[in-house]
Each structure stands twice: as structure tokens, then as C-alpha cells.
């Protein structure tokens, strides 16, 4: 291809109206998803991929919200059901049920973890100034998971603290003991 053609192929700014990707603007971006009827969001830069639900391999004696592990291109990735973790909604698997795989950087090392949600919905732009503090008024989701609230139209979206999501509860011997007793 001639270099002149190449140059003429480059669109002049504003030449095309880029439908559908008008969300690429300044400001922070968040991936929103639904758990039961509620809207939640995580920092889009952490999202590694979105997978359809498949049955993972069970981890023995894990807490009930840990579904198991899957093979993601050779890497073993744990799957956590956010609905169960936050005790909102039920662990029903529908056609829209997806796993959002987050790669979470941390002080020590990054972890890749998949979270089961009811459906992904949209990409949300929110400046820092748009994010409001969440009032501590009960609710099922522990306060330290919440980074803030954003108003979107009539809805309120809860921004999740990705760092906090990385923290996994250790398998306590109590859980195991009870399970053992239940099974005997």
C-alpha cells in the first residue's frame, strides 16, 4: 500500500461519529454489574476478562461463597460468588450469569480472581468528585468493601473497593469441623 493512501486512511478528528464508544472520555471508568436488583461497579482497569459461567473444580472445605477454581489459559484462578459473599440475592445461574475476572495489584503481589455476578451492564464514567461517601446504615455489604456511591440517573451505583475484594478469608478449622460433623 502506498504511503499516501495510508495517510489518507487516517480519519480527521470528528470525521466519524464513533457510536458506542463515546464513553472513552476523560475521568475514571468503572464496569457496572448487577447483583440481584442492585447496581455495583469496579475499576475497569482491573478487569482482566469477562467469562461465561462454567462449573469450577471444588476446593475442599472452602467457605460456601468460594465456588472453586478454573483454568484460565494455564493459570489457576479461584472463583468467588459475590452474591453469596455479600449475601445479596441467590446463587442462581441464568444465561446472563458471568464471571468478571479481576487482576488486583497489591502491595505484595497481584492476584487474579474471578467473581460471579448476575450480569454486566455498562461502563460508567465518574470523576472523583462524583463519588459520594456511602452512609453507614446497615446493609449486607461490609463497609470496607465500599469505595463510594455514584448517582446514575435515578439509580445509585455502589463502587467496590477492589483491594478489599482481594482479601480472602482463611479456611477456618471451625467451618471444616462443622462440615465434618454435618457429613458424619
Amino acid at each position, binding site marked *: 500500500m502506498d504511503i499516501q493512501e495510508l495517510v489518507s486512511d487516517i480519519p480527521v478528528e470528528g470525521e466519524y461519529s464513533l457510536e458506542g464508544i463515546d464513553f472513552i472520555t476523560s475521568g475514571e471508568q468503572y464496569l457496572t454489574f448487577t447483583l440481584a436488583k442492585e447496581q455495583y461497579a469496579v475499576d475497569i482497569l482491573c478487569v482482566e476478562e469477562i467469562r461465561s459461567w462454567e462449573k469450577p473444580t471444588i476446593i475442599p*472445605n472452602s467457605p460456601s461463597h468460594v465456588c472453586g477454581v478454573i483454568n484460565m489459559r494455564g493459570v489457576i484462578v479461584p472463583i468467588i460468588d459475590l452474591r453469596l459473599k455479600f449475601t445479596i440475592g441467590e446463587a442462581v445461574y441464568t444465561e446472563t450469569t458471568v464471571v468478571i475476572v479481576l487482576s488486583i495489584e497489591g502491595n505484595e503481589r497481584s*492476584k487474579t480472581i474471578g467473581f460471579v455476578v448476575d450480569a454486566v451492564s455498562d461502563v460508567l464514567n465518574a470523576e472523583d468528585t462524583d463519588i459520594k461517601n456511602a452512609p453507614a446504615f446497615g446493609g449486607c455489604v461490609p463497609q470496607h468493601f465500599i469505595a463510594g456511591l455514584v448517582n446514575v440517573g435515578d439509580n445509585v451505583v455502589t463502587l467496590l473497593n477492589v483491594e478489599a475484594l482481594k482479601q480472602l478469608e482463611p*479456611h477456618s478449622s471451625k467451618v471444616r469441623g462443622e462440615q465434618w460433623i454435618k457429613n458424619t
Partner: protein
Amino acid sequence: MSVDLSQFIPNFLAESFEGLELMESSLLNLEQGDDETMNAIFRAAHSIKGGAGTFGFDHVTEFTHLVETLLDEMRNGQRAIKQDDVELLLVSVDCMRMLIEAIRDEGDYDKDKIDETYQLLLVALKGKEPDLLPTTNNSTDKSVTSTDGMTEWNISFIPEHHLVQTGNDPLLLFNALAELGELKVEANCNNLPSILDADPQELYLSWNLTLHSKNASEALIREVFEWVEDECELTITQNKPAECDVESANLEEKLTASQPADSNDTANLDESLTVEKVAENTQQEKQVIKAPTKSTSKTKVDAGSIRVGVDKVDSLINLVGELVITQSMLSELGSDFDLSKVERLTSGLEQLLQNTKELQESVMRIRMLPISFAFNRFPRLIHDLGKKTGKDIELVLKGEQTELDKTVMEQISDPLVHLVRNAVDHGIETAEVRAANGKATKGKIVLDAYHQGGNIVIEIKDDGGGINRDAVYNKAVEKGIVDAGTSLTDNQVFELIFEPGFSTAQEISDISGRGVGMDVVKKNIQALGGRIQIDSTPGEGSTFKVNLPLTLAILDGQLVKVGSETYIVPLITIVESLQTKAELINRVSGDMVLYRLREDNVPIIPIYKLFGIASDADADSLEEALLVVVEADGQKVGLLVDDLLAQQQVVIKSLDENYQQVEGISGATILGDGSVAMILDIPGLIELAMQNANHRLSSKTHSPSAEGAMI
């Protein structure tokens, strides 16, 4: 001609460490009159000095220079090989290692230690001063230097035109000379051709150098030019000391004359001056070094490197070639396939299988290093420990060429050191005791490595007093680890020294056993998927046998089915698999289920209950169930499974990386269908089952719902 030298620093470091290792091991084996070893040591020191000089690590150069001088004297036979000097050289090697490590880590080093050793080296060299100048030096030489004043040397250096093409830079040589004293450089450009005729890659200059120096000798100057000696005309002449120098020399003579008894003092003065210079140099050095290394620090995230023999790489390339041929054959077959070609397809797939297997083996082999990498540190360790404990010990190394995965090697090093240290400390008796027992006074420790099955065995064997069975037993009773009166086999008693409780210092002197941190040793070995066994005969010695998997990346496994899940049992832990017979199942001591396996009673662990999985198997019927009998830590248990599947090699993936450690599970792997399967950790599994049994026992009293049989 300026080249970014910093890119060669990693090579310099690697080679220096190798050189240091060689120096250390050779020094330990050094005997009077062994010229070859002596030369090897000298060469190693020399190339470290040369390299350090090239990169401008002057503190290393300066220090190594003294070491080299001392070695040179020993090499030339001016100095007998004495134990004191060898010790000093060993310490010097430590110092050099410290300095070079400081360069590698861009960190600090123990300056006091370096200074101290530097002084010791100076003293050692000074003490031999009369011998310092070999008799081969002509008499004028001697007379001039003996005044100890500044000497002026004229050096005419006419290099051949192609000197720079061999990688030599006169500037570096001059810098090295400048370190010896005050240097004046005059370039002679008479031979310069016209600019049109000049070849930019040739050198047309020659130089006249004048060096004012106090301690330079012809030999020292020649040494600077050693690398280019064959490529230049070099004349070194000595001038009469210059006027002012004579004065200072006289002054100094007066000084020494006025305090003849205190000649040591001046020597010290001299030394402190030099040391100060070192300090100065190092400080400047730090700034100079920092700049270039910073840019490389990004790539330096300690990825580690392996030196691989070319033959290993060649075999890989061959295999990849074959694989490519197989691939093209298969894809050709696939593009136009009908059933008549099934046979060719099968044979192609078989070939592919073969290729993959060989390729896998070859790739694994790249990570393999001979165990001598781990063994090399032991001669020094034994040497030092022997001196500390006053025991005379001979170390025998065997099977040093046995190869082991690099990661395993790195992690097994420390436990091995621990075991060897213990063998010296507690295994080998003192010379008196040995003599009294009619043994040779010299103790012997044998380190041996060999392959056995898919494993590697490392043996640490001593001919000491052996483990005092009764003392260990009594101690265990005292500690409450064992109930008094329990009868234990020898092996069970020896196992006791791995108990955490046994690891305090006083007990070791009481009992002739070993215990310092043996629990940690055992834990480390187990973390590598290995085992440790003890064999000990009173009066004859003990053998510690460490059994390790060859690699941490791949494992031979037996796939088993439990409910809907597939698990992998490491093949090495499996004793046998069998179908249970009802009459061999015994329920004893309040519902503990045992299976009679010949003479053994093996407790049965139902995995589905332990892991909380629904199982197809009828939980209450143990008849005709499948039992995989596994062994860990001398404990046999039977794992109850639904089905036995294939045996295959599995690639171990970490569960820890994105999740966390799970009790009873050592990792995960990916099966042929892309699904994940857990690898069972047998020792962990047994512990888990025991904890649960205890838990059940304690909660039984509280909740009536927990009543009922375990199975």
C-alpha cells in the same frame, strides 16, 4: 573509543563468583609444591583484579592486588605455603566475595572487616619484606628501592597498530599505572599518517611515560602491560631519584634513624595512609558506579540465570526440528483426511507423543545442575567447623555429577548445611573419645548423591558415635512427647529428634543426638515433597538419607475419582491400591475403622467426607470399595475413593498464587480436557483427618447430632 561497559558487568560478576569459588576450594586442597593448583588460584585472583580494573571497581582491584601479591610470592616459591597464610587468603576470599556482592546488590559491605583484612595482608607482605624483591632483580634496582624514596621510571610504550582491535585501550593501562604513583604521559604523534591514509581502527601513537612512585617495581609495571606485552615494544628504565625525592627519602631515613626501635610505627603510618586512599577511592567509586547500574536495574529483578551446556541446547533444537516435521506431516494429513489414512494418523500421533515426551525431558534437563553446586560449600564449612570444634574431620564427596533441578538445589542447600553441621557438632566425637573407642582419630563425613527411581537421594553419613537411643527416648518422655513405658522401634525413636520440642541447645549437649532446628530441616524437605530417614548404629555412626523429587514442576500421579471430582495422588506415596474385603475391616477402640493389610492395621480415610463432597458410593458399605493405601512419615492410611483412573505425569500449578494454601491439597493441575484437578498432599491429609477426629471427639460430648459412626 567508548563502549558501554556496564552491559558486561553481570558477566564479570558471574565469572568473579566462579573464580572465588575456585580459589576457595583450591586453597583448601593446597599442598606444598602443588604448582598447578597454585597457578589456578593465582589466575583466578588475577582475572578478578583485571575485570574489576576494567569496570573501575577500584576497591576490588586494590584489595585483590594485595591478595595477588601474596599469592605471587607463594607461587614463586619466595614464601612457603603456611597454614596461616592460607587462612588469611581464605578470609580474603570472603572479603572479595563481600565486595563483589556489594557491587551486585548495589549495597554496602562490612568496611571494618575489609580494612582489618587489608591490614593483615599488608602485615603479612611486610613481614616478608626482605624476600619481597627476588634475587633475580639486579642490584641497582635493589639499592634504589631500599632508600624507600620516590623512584622515577621511564616507560616507552610503542604499541602495534592493531592494538585496539584486540580490545585493549591504552587509556585503561595508563589509569592503572597512575594508581602506582604520579604519572606523566607524553604522546608521540610523529608516526601519524595523513588523515586520508589513516585507518580509524588502527593506532598510530606511541607514548613516553614517566612514573614517580614510591612502591612501584619493574615487575609491577610490567604486570600492568601484561595483556599487551606481545603487541607492543615496551622498555622500562629506572632513573636516579629526583632531587626532591632524595630529600624526602633522606628525611624519612632520618626519621627511621631517630626511632630505630619503632620501625613498626612507620609501617603502620604507611598502611593507614594507603587505607585512607582506599576509603577515598571507594567513596568516589560509589558515585561513579551508581550512574550506569541504575539504568540496568530494571532488568535486574533477580531473574536468575542458568549456564547451560551447548549439548543440552543442541538436543533441544534437534527435538524441535523433529516436532516441526511431525506437525507438518499431521497437518498435511488433516487437510485431506479420509478413513483410509487412519493408520498414518495413529502413527503420526504416536510420533507426536514421543516428541513431546522427549522435548519435555530435554527442557527439564536445562534446569538441572550437578549437585556439586550445593556440595562445593562443604569443604570450607568442614574446614571452619573443624577448627572451631577442634576436631579433625575428613570430608568425602561422592556423586557430585548427579543432577538436580535448580529450584530444588537452592532450597535444599540450607537443610544440607544444617545436617552437615550437626554431623560435625554432635555426630563426630572428639579425638580423645575416638581414640579411646579404638577408632581412627580423624572423623569422616561422607556426602553422597545418587538417583533412585524418579528421585534423588542425598546421604549425609558420619562415622561418629551414633544416636544414643535411650537418651533421646528419656528426653522425649521428660518433654512429654512420649508416655513413659511406650515401646518404640529404633526408627520411631530417631523420628523424635525431628520434634520441635527437641530443638534447644542444652539438650544437645546432654544427649548425643542432634536436634538444633531439625524440625525446620524436616519441614523444608517436606515442602519440597521429599522425605528424610535416619539410620544409626551406636558407636559406628549415623546416616541421614534425604529423598527428593527430581523436579518441583512435574509429578507422577494416580488419578482417582471421588464423587464428581478428580484428584491426583502422588504416585510416590502410594503403597498399593486394593479392593476391600468385608472380613478385613475392623472397628476398634470406639469406632475407629481399620483395614487389615497383611500385618498392618491401616486407618481408613474417606476423602469425600474429609472434603465434604457428595459421593456416589454407598457411605455405609465398605465392602468392595476401592482403597488407595498411601504412606507418609511412616504412617500408612487408606484413602477411600470411588474409582481409579489413569496414571499420568501432571504439571504442578500453584493454588497459592491466586488463592491460598488449602489443607490436604498441595497444588492443582490441568487435565487433558482443560479442567482443574487438585493434587492431594498426603502428609497434610493425614494431619487433617487427625484434627477432624479430635474435633469430632470433643464436639461429640456437646451435640448429640454428631453421634454415629464415622463411616
